[in-house]
């Protein structure tokens, strides 16, 4: 995924969220849940893309989307939160023990391991900044 697919997803998710928030219908709830899960992934892809491509971040983002969208699908599919899993309804256990820690682990690991900002990059940017300010 790169710029174009990320932007297309963003546009679709924004419209889907508008529809889901403005009209009361069961299918739109599914659309809203999936949009809420897809929105952050599309924004991350847009922010991480270089030259229109996200390169090695593709699989971490796919994994993140599976965790977020899968959790929403389970939550919306289970009536009354589903059967008990330990002390809590299954859906609530999923909220507490999957929907926070799993995305956190994925984004922390993916961000730290793919972060690329070298001293050369910084120097190039600073040089351009000095040049532009000199022009002014």
């Amino acid at each position, binding site marked *: 995924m790169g710029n174009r697919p990320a932007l297309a997803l963003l546009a679709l998710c924004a419209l889907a*969220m508008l529809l889901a928030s403005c009209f009361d219908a069961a299918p739109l709830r599914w659309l809203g849940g999936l949009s*809420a899960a897809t929105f952050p992934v599309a*924004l991350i892809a847009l*922010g991480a893309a270089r030259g229109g491509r996200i390169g090695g971040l593709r699989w971490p983002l796919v994994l993140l989307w599976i965790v977020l969208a899968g959790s929403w699908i389970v939550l919306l599919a289970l009536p009354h939160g589903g059967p008990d899993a330990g002390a809590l*309804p299954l*859906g609530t256990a999923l909220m507490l023990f999957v929907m926070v820690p799993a995305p956190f682990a994925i984004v922390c690991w993916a961000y730290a391991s793919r972060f690329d900002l070298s001293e050369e*990059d910084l120097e190039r*940017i600073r040089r351009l900044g000095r040049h532009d300010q000199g022009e002014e």
Partner: protein
Amino acid sequence: MPLLDRPWIVASALVYLAVNLGIGLWALRRTRSPRDFWVAGQGLGVLVAGLVTMASAFSGFVFLGGPGLTYRIGLTSLFINLSIGFTSGLLGWSVAKRLRLLAEVREVYTIPDAVLCRFRSRTASGTAAVAILIGTVGYLGTQLLALGRLLEAVLGLRDLLGAWSLPVGVGLGLAVLLFYSVAGGMVAGVYTDVFQGALMILAACLVFGYAMDAGGGLGTIAASIAGSERFGRPFLEPFGSTPALTAIGFYFVFGIGVLGQPHMLHKFFMLRDPRRLRWLPLTLGGAQILCLLIWFGVGIAVPALVAQGRLPALEQPDDAAPMFLLHFTPDAVTGLAIAGILAAIMSTADSFMNIGSAVLVRDLPRAFGRKVNDELLWGRIATVAVTLAAAGLAFVYDDLIALLGTFSFGTLGAALAPALAVGLNWKRVTAAAATASIATGAGLNLILEFLAKQTLFPALPKPPLPPGALPTAVSLAASFAMLLAVTWWTGRREERIDADVLAVMET
């Protein structure tokens, strides 16, 4: 039991206020330039940046309102927090690096500065400044009132001063806030935030431990709630007594709206070395998760204690945290927690005092093509002015300001998130699209939220939304749609972007 009878609590509040004054004095000597005043001299490490961003993001709502909301609507309230699993990474990828690198090449101290650099449009920058000013008045007014009410209760001012107790409570809190924010600007703001953030995490973890222990562990807590008539199993279910649409809206608004919160984004300008951003999601997200333990812990323990008959049913849901602290924690922990709540309120307030003064002294004049000469002096004066104005408005129009405070997060998110998160990462976004999106997000959110929540004018209609729909979710989605649609309409020919800004966007 009156808090005044508990010397530990009064002492910890007074010690807390004294430490903040001390940090203000220390920072006074280190604030010599506008760069020090607005962005703390760009000298923060990544651990400190994570801590101060968390401290300014989490207001007293996390400690008081959150557990109260859980008591009222059950665990559906946790959808507000579930997005913290990804928000710190989203901030890192979408905006943090871009904003910090902009501050590397330009004199960028504020979000409207960044908008001006990116879009070369004073209209877009000025519209962002106006949206921030509206959000600031709401946020700051409600934080100051909450601060006054807490000090009023902790110091027993009501018995001593009667009707004057709230103004005196607000005045006392204001005096401390103004002293360190005016004297030390963001240097004081940041180092008080470090102290306040550490205090918040310590208090949250301790109170969480006491909450789990008091309720008999998670299993007993859940069983007590599920077996009670008052709460029952729906309290524990993801969408118990609340429409699924509300939960989806919470998740969307708090997950994506975070990209438009100036009090958080402002901290990214202050990082010493942009390469240290690598660890931002870990430090920021970790601090947030630890702090939110208090919301979950107290939020689930108090209904269990009510169900077990060990605590009377609450008259006001917002009493959940105070009732728990007064009845189930030792005085020393209660004192620490009260200091943590004061810290949460004050760390958010001081950020908005600085941001509000920057709007008046820097952002709005620049939007009109003017520049204030002595920014440091005028920044200090504007900090006093914006704070007193917010406090005054909060007293005179308390209902209106409280109302504005409840949707300030949404207003800022809907106004700024699309222009920043998409605009800083996609070259084709035009100044017209950014301006339209900011105006749509702020304007639509103000109108919809006001119509949904106001009781001042009974003749006004409610917004035409289904039950459970959040007006902010509508305005945030509409703001994104507006940005993309206007870009498509106006962006066939790319607008010129300065070479250094382009390099920032492409790095």
